[in-house]
């Protein structure tokens, strides 16, 4: 089940499948989850959850020195008829309901934001147009909290776009009522200087379907935690991720799928391409199948394509199984190089070098994008990839 191939030097692709009585996913964190930033010690960098992250580039989000200020973050929400949007206090029961912050930066965001934004799709409302949330920074520092709530049997697509420059710590909660269907596309298309951290918690109701698409191109440092827990049996969660990490960028995606309810499914596919000196991608895929989660079916996959020397990937799938009564569980991680031999082969067929590289990257991502199953999202992503390829030195 685990595979590791062609690992470029300076990269790790390690995997484990542990059959454990007690989860280590929780115990290897330096502090238990909490809403209060004071419950987390300031990280020094050697903690399991921080060891891949360049703390100095977090601009003080991790040690309390970052303060909200500078030009306001512009948040523009456009939603079809029937959707409500409100600003609420931390005390609102919907805020934080999908999951507690698991690290100090997420807790910092939770402890610091002023108002949380709540977007609600009433029960049985089926949207034909996406809800769009445009987040644009102009150099300021901000803390935020967003809740997307779908009532029972509601269906929606949400597209969240991040552009410009900012230091942003913001968590997002997705609350799916029974039988609801939510697809979320979060695009991190920041300027090269931005810092963005966030914990994305999904709480998936009975028989509900959650699909997360995370696309990270920009920023100096992006560190996200897409997570899911199931509120009842029969839920389904799919996580698709795509990152294109260039010179000097740090892109870190830390997934956690918590199977506690029975008969739920999860599928994780993350793919990244890296190029340039000190491009660094981190992928952590933690899947926990608790003793109560009989009938679970889960698979997670991370693939990386290293286009040039000097880039580094750390890919760590981790599957913990506390019950044998499951449908399936597997993981795979592979980091491959686009090497001189591939380049030679394509060029020997008349294809110029730059086009050869683009061909490889485009194909690599297309495989993933085609699985998303939403034609307009797929089209938009492919043209985004095209634009990114045009702009990059690939």
């Amino acid at each position, binding site marked *: 089940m685990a595979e590791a191939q062609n690992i470029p030097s300076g990269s790790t692709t390690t995997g484990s499948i542990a059959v454990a009585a007690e989860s280590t996913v929780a115990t290897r964190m330096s502090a238990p989850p909490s809403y209060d930033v004071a419950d987390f010690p300031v990280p020094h960098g050697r903690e399991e959850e921080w060891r891949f992250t360049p703390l100095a580039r977090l601009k003080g989000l991790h040690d309390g020195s970052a303060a909200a200020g500078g030009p306001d973050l512009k948040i523009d929400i456009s939603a079809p008829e029937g959707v409500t949007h409100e600003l609420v206090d931390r005390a609102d029961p919907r805020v934080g309901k999908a999951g507690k912050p698991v690290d100090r930066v997420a807790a910092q965001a939770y402890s610091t934001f002023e108002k949380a934004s709540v977007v609600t799709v009433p029960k049985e409302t089926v949207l034909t147009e996406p809800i769009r949330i445009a987040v644009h920074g102009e150099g300021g520092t901000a803390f935020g909290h967003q809740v997307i709530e779908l009532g029972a049997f509601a269906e929606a697509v949400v597209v969240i776009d991040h552009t410009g420059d900012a230091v942003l710590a913001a968590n997002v909660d997705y609350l799916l009522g029974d039988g609801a269907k939510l697809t979320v596309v979060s695009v991190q298309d920041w300027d090269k200087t931005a810092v963005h951290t966030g914990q994305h918690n999904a709480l998936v109701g009975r028989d509900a379907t959650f699909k997360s698409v995370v696309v990270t191109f920009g920023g100096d440092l992006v560190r996200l935690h897409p997570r899911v827990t199931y509120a009842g049996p029969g839920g389904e969660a799919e996580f698709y991720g795509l990152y294109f990490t260039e010179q000097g960028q740090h892109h870190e995606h830390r997934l956690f799928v918590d199977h506690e309810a029975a008969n739920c499914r999860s599928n994780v596919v993350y793919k990244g391409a890296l190029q340039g000196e000190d491009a660094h991608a981190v992928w952590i895929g933690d899947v926990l199948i608790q003793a109560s989660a009989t009938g679970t079916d889960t698979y997670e996959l991370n693939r990386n*394509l290293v286009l040039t020397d000097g880039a580094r990937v750390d890919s760590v799938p981790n599957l913990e199984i506390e019950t044998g009564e499951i449908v399936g569980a597997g993981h795979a991680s592979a980091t*491959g190089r*686009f090497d*001189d*031999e*591939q380049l*030679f*082969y*394509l*060029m*020997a*067929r*008349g*294809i*110029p*070098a730059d*086009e050869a590289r683009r*061909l*490889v*990257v*485009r*194909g*690599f*991502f*297309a*495989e993933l994008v085609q699985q998303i199953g939403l034609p307009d999202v797929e089209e938009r992503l492919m043209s985004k990839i095209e634009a990114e390829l045009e702009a990059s030195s690939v």
Partner: protein
Amino acid sequence: MATLEIHDLHVSVEAENGPREILKGVDLTVKQGETHAIMGPNGSGKSTLAYSLAGHPKYTITGGTVTLDGEDVLEMSVDERARAGVFLAMQYPVEVPGVSVSNFLRTSATAIRGEAPKLRLWVKEVKEAMERLQMDPSFAERNVNEGFSGGEKKRHEILQLELLKPAIAILDETDSGLDVDALRTVSEGVNRVRETGQVGTLLITHYTRILRYIKPDQVHVFANGRIAESGGAELADKLEAEGYEAYTKGGATA
């Protein structure tokens, strides 16, 4: 009529203890419509010759000339050589993750022909070529050489030969590792291209077996980095009977 002229070609590779000369003065002329078999023992430098002609960066040309219709091939980049009409079917084709065969073939044909082939005609052209090589249509959706068997890799190389229609085709041990059925299929593919009269073929092989299917105009024995003897098809019969010993004795072959 396209002519590839190799004159006094010397090629080195970077070895642990400095540069090592592999090709020690190769002279050969291949004209469109001709088929030259190059036969030699393992390590005699056959692949080095093939890669050097295609422009692989591992090989350093230290002397001599290669021209295609008078144009200096050695000055050209790898892709320029391909577009000028030089095709290399590789002994060990390379896996390219994320790139489907169909996408690869079309991109390549577009580069070689200078314009994108009309989609409908192209689909038909590829489909028919694949049928002739007994390749399953699902093949087109797989990633280039990824998980291909040895025989599939070689069919895929010859598929490209048929689609790209080069002026000079260098086939590096296309026959190695094929069973008799695959060998016949692949040879028929090569012969279809040869019969157009539009290609000059450099058929590199270790064994005489493929020469039952592909009849060369000339046979060259390759030993110790140069052509040791040239002759007609009858030279292959002599090699079949006597092996390479006469050529390797005293010569340094790895």
